[in-house]
């Protein structure tokens, strides 16, 4: 610096010349700065634009899926069709097992009733002047809905002979047709519904039998292939939740513990350097490799069940550990050494120093790391495919050992569903749910961090 100064001074004779040299360069320097700022703004705009396009496309496609065509039918529980014995009641002196058996026998009887005939009658009654055959009439209602009638009856056998209003889901094809997800001008051979059924659907919408109602089944139902309109995320959601629990319970203590040990207690030598390098490498390992590891170790060796959220959680824990360790270590490294010296100088032991003083100031950092890691795990799909979580599971897992799928895997499965024009919207709806969950997690992280930071 000094050399440059002296050079310019010797080159220019008077102090005025120096000033002139500085001024002549000024425009260029300012222009350079302006250009750099413009690049920055352009980059941010490009990124924001991409995010905006992504979100608007997902929302535009997904939001219509949250409302769904549903029918309100006057259903007559016809005694001529429903020919079953009265529901067995617990008899005095009867053992619970016997009662259970009688009850199950009766329910089997109820299931064998031809509920489709009752549905068909109700549909015909809603539009009496339409000429449709049985198949066409039944194609209006989702195939799962006859079980809704059955369940209503099992719940309350007194319905026999009565007419009640029942809300039922229209079939996915009707939903497509009425929402315009299928081109109405296509010839019959390419339509999903027959011509009379399409006319019937239009008529039912006209006379108010079919309405677009909020699709609660997305949140309450499990996945379904035979009845796409009733497919929901409940199973996948619970699966993801169990996995998150496993990840939080395992990855946080393990990750924070190893980070604290490595940073505060471990001697600095070749071996710990090697460990550090390996942890950093582990963070860069493709997630599908972790899936293979999970399949080989947890399923093949430890014989844990396939498709279980526990195994998924274990695999995701392995994936999340490096993230948490690295972030916690950098948070610990950022703690000023004066704090450690203050505690050590007072005679605090190493552990007291760490747990009383160092860790508390790193809580915000550790929390952020944890939530970023968990959010990353929540969105991970590839490793789950390898441990069988892409299986079709039509049940909500009751424990982490039950078969289940996960939200991102459900998105993947729906994306591949044959009923494209119905599941395209469903997929986007599932993406909205997943993104909503992630945004909630991140918001929680920000909230907790600001609260913790204010406290310290």
């Amino acid at each position, binding site marked *: 610096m000094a050399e440059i100064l002296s050079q310019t001074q010797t080159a220019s004779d008077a102090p005025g010349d120096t000033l002139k040299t500085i001024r002549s360069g000024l425009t260029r320097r300012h222009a350079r700065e302006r250009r750099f700022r413009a690049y920055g703004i352009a980059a941010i705009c490009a990124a924001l634009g991409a995010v905006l396009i992504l979100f608007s496309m997902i929302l535009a496609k997904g939001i219509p899926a949250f409302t769904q065509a549903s029918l309100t039918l006057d259903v007559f529980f016809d005694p001529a069709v429903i020919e079953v014995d009265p529901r067995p009641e617990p008899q005095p002196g009867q053992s619970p097992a016997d009662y259970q058996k009688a009850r199950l026998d009766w329910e089997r009887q109820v299931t064998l009733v031809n509920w489709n005939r009752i549905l068909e009658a109700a549909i015909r009654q809603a539009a009496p002047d339409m000429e449709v055959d049985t198949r066409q009439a039944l194609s209006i209602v989702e195939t799962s809905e006859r079980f809704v009638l059955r369940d209503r009856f099992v719940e309350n056998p007194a319905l026999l002979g009565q007419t009640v209003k029942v809300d039922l889901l229209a079939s996915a094809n009707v939903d497509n047709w009425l929402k315009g997800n299928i081109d109405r001008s296509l010839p019959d051979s390419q339509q999903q519904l027959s011509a009379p059924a399409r006319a019937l659907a239009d008529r039912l919408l006209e006379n108010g039998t079919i309405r677009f109602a909020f699709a609660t089944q997305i949140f309450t139902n499990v996945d379904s292939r035979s009845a796409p309109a009733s497919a929901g995320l409940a199973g996948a959601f619970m699966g993801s939740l169990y996995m998150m629990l496993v990840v939080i319970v395992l990855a946080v203590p393990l990750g924070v513990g190893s980070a604290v040990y490595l940073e505060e207690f471990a001697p600095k030598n070749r071996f710990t350097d090697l460990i550090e390098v390996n942890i950093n490498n582990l963070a860069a390992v493709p997630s599908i490799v972790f899936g293979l590891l999970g399949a080989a170790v947890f399923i093949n060796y430890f014989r844990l069940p396939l498709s279980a959220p526990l195994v998924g959680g274990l695999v995701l824990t392995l994936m999340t550990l490096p993230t948490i360790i690295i972030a916690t270590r950098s948070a610990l490294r950022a703690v000023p050494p*004066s704090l450690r*010296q203050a505690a050590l*100088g007072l005679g605090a032991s190493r552990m007291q120093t760490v747990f*009383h003083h160092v860790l508390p*100031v790193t809580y915000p950092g550790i929390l952020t790391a944890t939530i970023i890691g968990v959010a990353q795990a929540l969105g991970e799909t590839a490793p789950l495919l390898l441990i069988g979580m892409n299986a079709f599971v039509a049940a909500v897992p009751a424990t982490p050992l039950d078969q289940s799928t996960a939200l991102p895997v459900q998105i993947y499965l729906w994306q591949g569903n044959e009923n494209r024009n119905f599941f395209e919207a469903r997929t986007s709806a599932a993406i909205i749910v997943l993104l909503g969950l992630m945004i909630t997690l991140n918001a929680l992280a920000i909230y907790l961090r600001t609260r913790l930071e204010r406290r310290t």
Partner: protein
Amino acid sequence: MNNEHAEVMEMHMPTEKIVGQTDLYSIKSSTVRTPDAMPRPIRVKAREVNVFYGSKQALFDVSIDVPERAVTAFIGPSGCGKSTFLRCFNRMNDTIEGSKVTGRIELDGADIYDGSIDVVELRARIGMVFQKPNPFPKSIYENVAYGPRIHGLASAKGDLDRIVETSLQKAGLWNEVKDRLHEPGTGLSGGQQQRLCIARAIAVSPEVILMDEPCSALDPIATAKVEELIDELRENYTIVIVTHSMQQAARVSQRTAMFHLGYLVEEGPTDKMFTNPEEKRTQDYITGRFG
């Protein structure tokens, strides 16, 4: 802002004492109340101490005696090893990766580097105040109470309250903070923070207090308060202070040791060191010819 103001108001000492650089010797003679007439018992004895950081030797064969209830000052230019030497006394060098200490340092006749010495106990007996005020990011009360609490010095809450109060009083901070004991210690002014750190060190009732350039991050007014405090504390504690301000050494210490390039150049009563040093290097340093 109010804190700063309060500090100014409470100062009853002439300002020349702090800023007067020219008449060094007259200041010294006016502030040192008890010239070290009678020899005091030796509290800490260092013999042939060498310190290595990795392969680099930072300290060469230093031997010194630290008398009881007096202030011993280590002076010397930056990088001369005075802080390194100070940190040997409570084994804070242990926390630095690759550091090695050879030689003997005795506290009351026992080698502190002996395997049987517990570092935690040692640091409870030899407290330390650092260059930059480093209160814990906790309340003022918690800052002072932390030491007694981890060492189990107070059995009841009342005992702890008493320790906190007396420590803050000894550190001359009680009147300034008694109404806000539960506010964060980091909210105090720099000088108050440093006195809080001193109170925190006193709270454990150490025998020796090490101070590593305790005033270098403070303004002259806060410096004066801390120096006054050091002068009062020496009635009860053995104090070793590292400073690169010769005026400060002259003002607060009874004995001075001069370090240069890792060697102990000269050591003796402060009066003698500043008026009639034996070594030329000491003479040059205290008259400002180098350093």
